[in-house]
């Protein structure tokens, strides 16, 4: 069979439009993941054993169950307990809540690599604990955790392809639809792969730039 560049050319606008959904899902997922992950990390490090246990359980569960299963659980099972989410919201929530577990662990690793002497010195100087986090711990943790966080964002872009399963018209789903019309899976899926690759490539390059900017000295 001949590789049809015509098919690619004709369908490229639709694929690019669909890529916007891919970006929307992964960026919103990342936003939820950062906020919820920070809270989770704080809970994980708290002195209260019940809170800590709950956070450990949460992280273990969300890291231990395939995201596809979580997505199906959110989309198909939640309505039975009275929480009927539209597909896009379910997908964003599932990716965000799952990714938060990983973000929490990344941040925990980063926080624990900051020498504890700094915290002790801050307490000795009477710096309140909010300022300690805001001025001393978080800026350093972000710098240390940055490579892993960019990695996580790239993972989220790839993982957003799972949202096609609940019927969201993102890149993978639209590729499936176009393949159904044109019977040219090779061309369409390879184009989709190239688009995913381009998005991730831009992300990893900007990640490296940000890392450079955050570096001191």
């Amino acid at each position: 069979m001949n590789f049809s560049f015509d098919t690619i050319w004709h369908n490229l606008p639709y694929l690019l439009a669909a890529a916007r959904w891919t970006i929307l899902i992964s960026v919103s997922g990342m936003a939820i993941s950062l906020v919820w992950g920070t809270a989770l990390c704080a809970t994980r490090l708290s002195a209260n054993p019940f809170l800590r246990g709950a956070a450990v359980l949460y992280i273990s569960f969300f890291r231990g169950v395939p995201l596809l299963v979580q997505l199906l659980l959110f989309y198909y099972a939640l309505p039975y307990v009275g929480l009927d989410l539209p597909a896009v919201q379910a997908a964003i929530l599932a990716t965000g809540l799952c990714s938060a577990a990983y973000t929490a662990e990344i941040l925990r690793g980063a926080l624990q690599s900051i020498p504890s002497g700094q915290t002790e010195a801050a307490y000795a100087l009477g710096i309140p604990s909010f300022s300690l986090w805001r001025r001393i711990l978080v800026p350093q943790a972000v710098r240390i955790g940055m490579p892993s966080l960019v990695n996580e964002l790239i993972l989220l872009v790839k993982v957003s392809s799972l949202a096609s399963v609940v019927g969201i018209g993102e890149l993978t789903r639209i590729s499936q639809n176009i393949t159904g019309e044109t019977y040219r899976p090779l061309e369409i899926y390879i184009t989709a792969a190239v688009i995913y690759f381009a998005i991730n490539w831009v992300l990893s390059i900007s990640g490296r730039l940000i890392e450079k900017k955050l570096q001191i000295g």
Partner: protein
Amino acid sequence: METELFVRYGPALLYGFGITILCWLAGSIGGVIVGFILACLNRWGPHALSWVIYVYVEIIRGTPFMIQLFILYYGGPYIGLVLSPVQAGITSFVVYGSPYFAEIFRSGFNAIPKGQIEAARCVGMPETRILWRIILPQMLVPITAPLTNFFIILTKETAILSVVTVPELLFQTQTMAAETFTFVEPFLALSLFYWLMVLVTGWIGAKVEQRVTRHLKRA
């Protein structure tokens, strides 16, 4: 909880579990072997080859597993590659996993001090024995944890195979849910099941790590 459902669909679920384990084991063992060959070629092969491997690693790591699966399963027949769903699942696992494994092995190779390898060459050890006697046993220490990590990731990726109708555990559960209109119990049970599988894999990984690092603990 509707227990009689699980009794009725028990055989199908058990069969799905078997397929999940088959795809996982065959795919990850194949991925480890191909990844190891890639890492060796990258280290000892010609320079041009390491560029090809670099491009391969970047492409596979930059695209979603689902798209790779679609290209192989739906696009394959157009270039004369007709695979059954299970075959496509295992093959795509090998293709998807090998670059990650190759990177893990590469970091392992780099962890061995150069002086040891130079010394081994000086006493006349052949390259293959250097690999087998000096590099591999020491390399196991830094790579066991990332290997376990990736085995766990692959455990969870098996769920994606259901999309190309591989009759694995998630596929059987979806069939059961669609036929009986029960969603909450099957999917919750399935989640717990995957969780258990991941915990067991992590536990085995921790045991292996204890074993390969035992020479470091004796003080």
